[in-house]
């Protein structure tokens, strides 16, 4: 079962929830946690597992070979991203602009632009007790998150071909491409928000996104107690299930700022995680019917 944890707004507590939830669940069963916020993956700051595997991740980029090129310029013509340019007697490729569509390469009459791998990030696989934790990170200067998110999901599918283990995907913030990629195959999405005007505004965007993707989703309200009750009203008015509420607590900020998990030291947080667990179980049983 695949559970994605997302939010419209950044900083609402996705990583806090995904790391605490996965650690809590792993006390009694095998769990997989995947950090897909590849621009700024943070789960690893809270989970200290043993590194069991690591690999560089590549995207395919055309590379010009001079031997047979007739300088016809077709490559520049077919590229919609201005990533290939004919300059005098050379063909120049701009890797960051390339989307890897292969058009220039496959349509070249002389095979002068073979696709070659270019390193764009790194995947790491850690293990801690029953928890398998996979994290991917983009190298600085690399701008496209989607290819790395895709490849990370492929790695997880390959390592764990059966669907009987719960997978938790910590998604990037926002509502654009990277979030779509991270959540589109999820069975259930947990949207985490905070009860403030920014939280509500961005939650609505996230809800619209989930509806467009036809996802089943529920809300977890973090820092409950600050702000106002408009998020609550919005959820009630729109029949959106509120799965858990994590109270605003200075102690939480303290533990979090030191990279510590919360539920072992704050019983109230553990109670809320139990609520999330119960919701997941209920969802699983209903799905099987």
């Amino acid at each position, binding site marked *: 079962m695949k559970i994605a944890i997302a939010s419209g707004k950044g900083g609402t507590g996705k990583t806090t929830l995904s790391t605490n939830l996965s650690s809590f669940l792993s006390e009694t069963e095998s769990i997989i946690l995947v950090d897909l916020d590849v621009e700024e993956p943070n789960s690893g700051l809270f989970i200290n597992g043993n590194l069991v595997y690591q690999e560089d991740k590549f995207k395919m980029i055309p590379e010009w070979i001079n031997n047979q090129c007739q300088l016809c310029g077709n490559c520049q013509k077919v590229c919609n*991203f*201005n*990533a290939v*340019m004919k*300059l*005098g007697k*050379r063909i*120049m490729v*701009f890797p*960051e*602009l390339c989307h890897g569509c292969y058009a220039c390469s496959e349509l070249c009459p002389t095979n002068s632009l073979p696709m070659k791998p270019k390193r764009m990030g790194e995947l790491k696989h850690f293990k801690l007790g029953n928890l398998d934790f996979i994290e991917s990170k983009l190298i600085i200067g690399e701008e496209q998150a989607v290819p790395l998110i895709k490849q990370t999901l492929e790695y997880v599918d390959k390592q764990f071909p059966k669907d009987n283990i719960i997978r938790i995907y910590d998604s990037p913030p926002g509502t654009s491409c990277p979030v779509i990629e991270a959540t589109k195959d999820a069975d259930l999405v947990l949207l985490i928000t905070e009860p403030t005007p920014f939280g509500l505004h961005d939650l609505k965007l996230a809800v619209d996104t989930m509806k467009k993707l036809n996802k089943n989703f529920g809300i977890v309200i973090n820092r409950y107690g600050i702000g106002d009750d408009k998020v609550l009203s919005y959820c009630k008015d729109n029949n959106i299930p509120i799965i858990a509420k994590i109270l605003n607590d200075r102690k939480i900020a303290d533990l979090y700022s030191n990279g510590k998990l919360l539920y072992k030291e704050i019983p109230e947080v553990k109670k809320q995680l139990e609520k999330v667990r119960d919701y997941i179980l209920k969802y699983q049983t209903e799905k099987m019917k």
Partner: protein
Amino acid sequence: MKIVLTAKGKEWDSKIDPRFGRTEYIFIYDEDNDKIEILDNISVTSEAHGVGPKTAQKIFDANADILITGNGPGGNARTVLESGNLDIYVGASDMTLKEAYDAYKNDELKKF
């Protein structure tokens, strides 16, 4: 020598366009023949990505020797320009094209 200036207009008293990639016009002055050619860059400015290199390509294809602009080209555009053995001068931001050209002639502009 062929001198190129990033411009906001088509006259010598038009202002320099401080941007490179999304410059409105490319003003080309052929010193040897005292001829002026002006390229409208609007088709490039409406593109999503790779605007710098596209503008640079126009300048490359024009066989320019010198580029005078405001802030200077970004990474990719610079790569394109440097492959054409072009010298780039910056700092002309608030000048007219004529003032910028004179400043270049008097060694008052900074080489990029």
